[in-house]
């Protein structure tokens, strides 16, 4: 479960961003909509514990992120939060499969090659496990980043503009895949986007950046 209260952040004095309270139940899928500059990415970073809010609180499964030490927050993030970014980045020196194994290792989970193989199969990347990230197409990279986000069966999946760089066909596929995989691990899915194509896909929507 994800819950925020009175969340705000300011990059400079007088340029504060205030966000509406969010309350997503376990397994629920939410869409956070907003125009460019509305603070979507900032909100996602606050939710993922990548940035500390100046006021307010983020609670995930009953844990207040502000109560965690830096190292505990890193560990918590690795185990409980899966994040997918607009541009899929990887550790270039590792294969796709090793990138997933690294995600397990860093979260303190014993690397499970069988699970990695199964997950890649499910995402249509079974034949790409030993490929380097730079050998993947844009769509394959996005699917591989979804695989990495869910490999540790997180409680929350956060996706930042996951479809903005994709064509309509890939956009639909990725949304479907995200929802399917979130359901498979019973995770709360929260997508922040300005991509209007997603509006019809997820009925639970919050719009930010509106006066």
């Amino acid at each position, binding site marked *: 479960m994800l819950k925020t209260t009175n969340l705000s952040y300011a990059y400079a004095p007088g340029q504060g961003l205030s966000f509406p309270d969010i309350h997503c139940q376990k397994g629920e899928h939410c869409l956070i909509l907003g125009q460019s500059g509305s603070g979507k990415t900032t909100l996602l*970073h606050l939710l993922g514990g990548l940035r500390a809010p100046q006021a307010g609180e983020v609670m995930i499964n009953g844990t207040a992120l502000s109560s965690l030490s830096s190292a505990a927050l890193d560990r918590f993030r690795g185990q409980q939060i899966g994040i997918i970014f607009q541009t899929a*980045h990887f*550790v270039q020196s590792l294969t796709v499969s090793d990138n997933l194994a690294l995600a397990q290792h*860093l979260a303190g989970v014993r690397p499970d090659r069988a699970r990695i193989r199964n997950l890649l199969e499910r995402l249509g990347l079974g034949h790409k496990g030993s490929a380097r990230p730079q050998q993947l197409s844009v769509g394959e990279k996005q699917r591989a980043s979804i695989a990495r986000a869910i490999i540790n069966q997180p409680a929350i999946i956060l996706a930042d503009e996951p479809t903005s760089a994709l064509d309509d066909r890939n956009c639909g596929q990725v949304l479907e895949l995200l929802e399917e995989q979130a359901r498979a691990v019973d995770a709360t899915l929260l997508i922040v986007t300005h991509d209007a194509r997603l509006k019809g896909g997820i009925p639970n929507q919050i719009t930010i950046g509106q006066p």
Partner: protein
Amino acid sequence: MNILRLSWKNLTNKPLNMGLSLVLFGLGVGLISLLLVLNDQLQEKFSKNLAGVDLVVGAKGSPLQLILSSMYHIDAPTGNINISDAAPFLRPGHPIIESAIPLSLGDSYRGHRIVGTEPAFLALYGAVLAEGAMWQRTMEVVAGAGVASKLGLSIGDTFKSSHGFDQNEDLVHEDAESFKIVGILEPTGAVADQLLLTRFSSLWAVHESHDHESHDHEGHDHESEGAGEPYPKGLLDYQDKQITSMLIQFKGHNIQALNMQRAINENTEMQAATPAIEINRLYSLMGTGTKALRWLAMVIIIVSGLSIFISLYNSLKERRYELALMRVMGASRSKLLALIVLEGLLLAVLGYVLGIGLSHGAMYLLADQMRETYQYDFSWAHFLQEELYLLGGALGIGLAAAILPALQARNTDISETLSDG
């Protein structure tokens, strides 16, 4: 997948950068290691070959040359001395001298020196016969273990010597009687291994055959020397002959013994030199060159440390997003620090291993040439404790090169970096 493996993958992902850093580091470590190994082996051999000799007496000239030629069999002798002049020191019962061993030099066989001497020479180096017998007659030879093995000599073999110490077919004494191997020594690890030892009179006999027609017969009588055995008497019976030098051991180091060197140098046509003093002088001469090379190696290592630093620093720029991503996946700040430090240390360890390999490989390749120059066996498998300290130094440089990039990685602002991506 663990941090060590990830460090390794990151390094091998940029083989050119890694190769350059490794080669530079390896060269620096290799040069220092080679200097250490060479220096140690040379000092060990030089010390071993001091053999308790207190004084070397020979012809006037460079004292270092006298020591090098008579004790280490490296340089050319300073000349010869008359037995009549040397006789007071060679006579048994000298109040100060425990032993005085005569040496006659001047000939060689396939680059190995032939030394005319007394059987007591063997005792200086603790040499014992492995097979055969000691020489009894002129032209009989006992071969050192190294020379016998290298030249494939065995008991009963004969050979003709060459004039001088270089291998030169034109200088072979074709008209002289052949030397005959009668014994082979056990290895000693000292210079005796590389020598062909014979009776003091053998070199006289070889050179006499040249000059026989113009030879001055005064002072000795071939008729009385017995058929087939020239110079059957003791060394002191040939006062008109010459030897190259004497190796002297004192009974004790009293004031008279200490004054002997000065007395010889001031009052005779001969020269006396103390091996320990001359070898220390040689070390200090060599030390200047060694020091310069050591500084050069240090500069190479520092440059390689800089190369590691630049390589890691540049790779950080390219891997900013990767590092932030690792934080997203749960890596702590200290894990990122450890990752970059490990990359620096891995490069240092690999550079060290390459350097040690290069150094001992070079020793292996140089060993033959060094044996010819210094008359000793040099071992490529001679490892030193200092080389372990060198590993400590290498790790220190790896750490120093990596620490700034590692701190930068540790302080990566995840949100800011990912927002830029």
